[in-house]
């Protein structure tokens, strides 16, 4: 920090380093935590399958008066393990779509649900002397399509299909697909910035430690403070999402990602503080040298 010009250049390089560090932390957190395995594991840990089953039961119960179809026609055909399979498949499909732009052939087998409805319609027709004509077939098909859609929607706890149909996953996928290259690029950028700092501070090499320490400290603070506010105030928990399973999955995922980002930020802050302490020690050692030595340094 001997020349104003080198101070300004170091300051600018350090500010860029802060953003590269923040981007690196963010992408690393997404790379490690935003995976289908983690999303499925979270959904399992939070017991979302029984929640979905309850929601389905309550939904079909509410609809009984208008549809005339008893709740058990649906609930008897949909088990918790089937719910889990559909839920997990939809999570995998969402991530697969982001990675490759494709999805699997379809959701888990819902033939049992179709059969249950077919059986109910058939008994109803026999009991009431209704002819199994085109109208009957249309009504059955409509009920089956509707039931499939309801089950599928309720199991989509991360709302992957909604995000996909509106083109959001496609846009996110552009970044998600190349996350490894982006991380590699950011590491490269960080290395270049450190080299530039070394070049700028070549007459006083120890100050590289100061600038890097400050960069890490600020990057850590910029990451830690908002994350702490989000977690401390329960920001994600205040979202008004009507479906309990979606609410649980979404808030847990967001809180998990924020916590991971905060942990990374705290680690970076610690690294920054360590660098500044080392710099301080080096500086104080130099101040204790003899006057002759000091005059040599200033030349």
């Amino acid at each position, binding site marked *: 920090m001997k020349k104003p010009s080198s101070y300004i250049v170091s300051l600018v390089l350090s500010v860029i380093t802060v953003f590269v560090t923040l981007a690196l932390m963010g992408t690393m957190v997404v790379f490690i935590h935003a995976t289908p395995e983690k999303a499925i594991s979270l959904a399992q840990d939070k017991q979302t399958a029984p929640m979905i089953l309850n929601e389905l039961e309550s939904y079909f119960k509410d609809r009984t008066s208008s549809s005339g179809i008893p709740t058990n026609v649906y609930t008897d055909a949909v088990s918790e393990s089937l719910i889990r399979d559909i839920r997990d498949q939809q999570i995998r499909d969402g991530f697969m779509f982001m990675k490759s732009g494709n999805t699997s052939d379809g959701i888990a087998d819902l033939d049992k649900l179709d059969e249950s409805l077919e059986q109910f319609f058939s008994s109803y027709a026999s009991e009431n002397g209704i002819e199994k004509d085109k109208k009957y077939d249309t009504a059955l098909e*409509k009920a089956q399509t509707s039931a499939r859609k309801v089950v599928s929607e309720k199991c989509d706890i991360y709302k992957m299909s909604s995000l996909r149909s*509106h*083109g959001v996953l496609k846009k996110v996928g552009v970044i998600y697909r190349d996350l490894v290259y982006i991380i590699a690029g950011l590491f490269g950028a960080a290395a270049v910035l450190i080299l530039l700092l070394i070049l700028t501070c070549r007459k006083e090499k120890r100050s590289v430690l100061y600038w890097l320490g400050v960069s890490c400290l600020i990057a850590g603070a910029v990451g830690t403070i908002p994350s702490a506010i989000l977690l401390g105030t329960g920001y994600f928990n205040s979202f008004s999402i009507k479906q309990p399973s979606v609410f649980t999955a979404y808030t847990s995922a967001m809180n998990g990602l924020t916590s991971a980002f905060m942990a990374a930020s705290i680690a970076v802050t610690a690294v920054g503080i360590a660098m500044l302490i080392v710099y301080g020690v080096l500086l104080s050692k130099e101040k204790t040298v003899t006057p002759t030595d000091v005059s040599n340094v200033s030349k």
Partner: protein
Amino acid sequence: MRLMSEKKRNSPLLHIATPFIMLALCTGITAAALIKPYDKLKMYLNIAFMDTLKSEPGGDASGLVIKDNKIIEDYSGKTSSTGEVIRPKFGELFAMLKSEAFDVDVPVYWGSGSELLELGACQSTGSAVPGTEGNAVISAHVDTFFSGLDKLDIGDKITLNTNYGEFTYIVKELIEFKATNGKYVLPTEDTRLTLYTCKKDILGGSDQRFGVICELTESSFYTEAGGDAQ
């Protein structure tokens, strides 16, 4: 003298002040840079977490039957500048609206109502079906599907994909009017597309509307089977 000057530059004050200068700079830049992504994220969440099952087809007590058609978006067959349109039924998804300004592809439903507006944009049934002469009027919520409407500028391209053709429009005029003023949603002699939404009002509903009037520049009616539905 030189030593004194160096001491001044290496002063503890500068060492202490630098992190604060950087913190101020970085916080400012971060806050400015996050405004747009935050708005986008909010819109994505609004769209994703809408309760689409409220208007699930087939069993709604209100009698509204919503039909989600698959819209052809990659037609590769022959086209013609003239052709037949398919008049949609109320509650039917019949088009996809696309523009660089929008962050999402906007599904367009025929009809109106709060349930349809939660699923996409709505075209007024009294307006012209895309592909016919007249004013095709489409509206949507400002916090979801038309959150990017204010980004449209004169000369911007808008595409409307239907299952019978693709229609390209260019923004000709930016408009602002009161909800009670029907001037822009009335039938017209020329062929145009009018898109509008509410003005954001933090105190609640706003009676101000804003939007764009677009001129039709290209009609491509599909003349043979081709392309995959979305």
